[in-house]
């Protein structure tokens, strides 16, 4: 394979290397484009959406898609296109915050468990086993039921239910990396424990965490939609894809577009995140490079 001298910047950072490799996978690029479009949509929702998402116009209720309302209108005459656009805000908010929270807490616990074996590891991992033994959606439902509805509580619920994955991933990575010879070699050069963790262990277990983060974001968005569908998450009239599905389900026979478009939004987002996650997994692994 040709050497890539012209691609290489002077500092040759991990980021630029990853990007160079990510570019090769068309599917991963598609996922990245979907995510960028989604983020832009969420940020500029007020400019893109032609109508106020909550404005009712009963005269125009249940309109089929037309030039005026490209996704049609719902039973209250609200523009579905605008609601889907605004819905992306909730989804991304939940997705990002949940993943940050879970990766931070879960990853931290996992690193502690992996590095300091013994009682600490036992306590942490058995707690995670308890969390894992409850189906995640059921766990989220229970937490929402205990804390009450609302965006924050929803995020806490989904966050807690996704912590164990990160803990397990980070712990297993740390354990396998901890025993690698290059860690011993780093000790021989006089590096301290903290330096070894920061310089060698964390960068080496970052790849699975990033992959899990993209997939975990898909999980968070999907679970939000699911809980909202069940009426436990975001409450109407806030535009949210899951609650829109729920609101439209009684009209599915005659006005299928009411469920079609929010459903499509969920499918496209999850698809984008999944292919991006797969692509990142491949491009973050230096052993697969070139």
């Amino acid at each position, binding site marked *: 394979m040709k050497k890539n001298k012209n691609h290489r910047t002077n500092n040759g950072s991990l980021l630029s290397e990853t990007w160079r490799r990510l570019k090769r996978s068309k599917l991963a690029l598609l996922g990245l484009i979907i995510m960028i479009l989604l983020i832009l949509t969420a940020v500029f929702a007020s400019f893109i959406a032609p109508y106020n998402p909550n404005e009712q116009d009963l005269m125009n209720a249940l309109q089929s898609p037309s030039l005026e309302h490209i996704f049609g209108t719902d039973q209250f005459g609200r523009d579905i296109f605008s609601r889907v656009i605004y819905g992306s805000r909730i989804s991304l908010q939940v997705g990002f915050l949940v993943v940050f929270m879970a990766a931070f807490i879960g990853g931290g616990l996992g690193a502690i468990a992996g590095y300091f074996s013994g009682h600490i590891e036992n306590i942490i991992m058995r707690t995670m086993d308890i969390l894992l033994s409850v189906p995640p959606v059921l766990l989220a439902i229970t937490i929402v039921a205990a804390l009450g509805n609302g965006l924050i509580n929803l995020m806490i619920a989904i966050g807690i239910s996704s912590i164990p994955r990160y803990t397990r991933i980070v712990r297993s990575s740390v354990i396998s990396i901890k025993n690698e*010879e290059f860690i011993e070699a780093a000790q021989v050069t006089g590096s301290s424990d903290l330096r070894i963790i920061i310089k060698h262990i964390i960068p080496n277990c970052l790849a699975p965490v990033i992959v899990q983060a993209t997939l975990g974001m898909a999980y968070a968005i999907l679970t939000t939609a699911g809980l909202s569908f069940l009426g436990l998450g975001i409450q109407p009239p806030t535009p949210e894809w899951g609650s829109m599905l729920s609101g439209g389900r009684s009209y599915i026979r005659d006005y299928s577009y009411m469920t079609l478009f929010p459903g499509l939004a969920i499918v496209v987002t999850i698809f984008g995140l999944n292919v991006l996650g797969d692509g990142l997994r491949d491009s973050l692994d*230096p*052993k697969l490079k070139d």
Partner: protein
Amino acid sequence: MNKDQNLLTIKNLTIDYEVNSGTVHAVDNLNLEIGYGETLGFVGETGAGKTTTALGILKLLQEPRGRIVSGEIYFEGENLLDKSKGEMRNIRGSQISMIFQDPMTSLDPVMPVKKQIAEVIKLHNSISNKEANKKAKEMLETVGIRKERADDYPHQFSGGMKQRVIIAIALACNPKLLIADEPTTALDVTIQAQVLELMKDLKEKFDTSIILITHDLGIVADLCDNVAIMYAGSIVEYGDIDSIYNNPLQPYTVGLFNSIPDLDTEKKELQVIKGTLPDPTNLPSGCRFHPRCSKVFDKCSRVETSKIEVEPGHFVNCHLYNDNK
């Protein structure tokens, strides 16, 4: 630098490993001396305790399982066993370096090689990133790697080149002692020769003392001044290269030489030392080697051996050479 004084003196070093089936005496009452600029070959079978000794010198045994039970390790006149963790960290890498057996796994796979060398330099010298990187590139050139490849990752190098990078890391801070733990075992023969040639050159250039751990007597002959033959945790024969190669005394040493294929004489089969290393949790009484020894006699199983100087600088632990048998 005082040439008379030894760089490293190990006195009565005993290292134990606690395992489920008991206590392993990995290193037992070991005595060793290395002078400035000297290269010592440390030869023995797998499991003889060579690597454990090396890790013991660096105080990097896996605690709490492995621990130094007794003994003293003097490095430039100071006992390493009295040093604190922080002091040991300063010594590692800058004063004593180590090269590991497998170059494939000894480099961090997600860090460019230049950065890995610069890491060590920065760790022990207060210099800027830029200077450290410059020095790292110079080190790469010293070990024969073009500096255009400085930003490459370890997987982009072949095994021999990786070992060169590892040597560059080990020598980056100009250490006084380099412990090379089977540096060529994982490499094929032509690359072995190149790496050995490189080590020879660098030894001259940096004036580094080397402990070369190996089971290849050919490498030892090529590189070393003195040889220590290790068996089951203790040194059974020690001497300069000529006396060991021309006049091996311990039956174990003789056995090692006999198990090297020889092109000149016609032999149907290689002579091998029968049996395997004894169970380290249950070492034989008397001389450790007596169950496998071809010249065993009644005293061997009863009385522990002690060091006998058969000729100046040539020591052997064997009852055969004891005058009052």
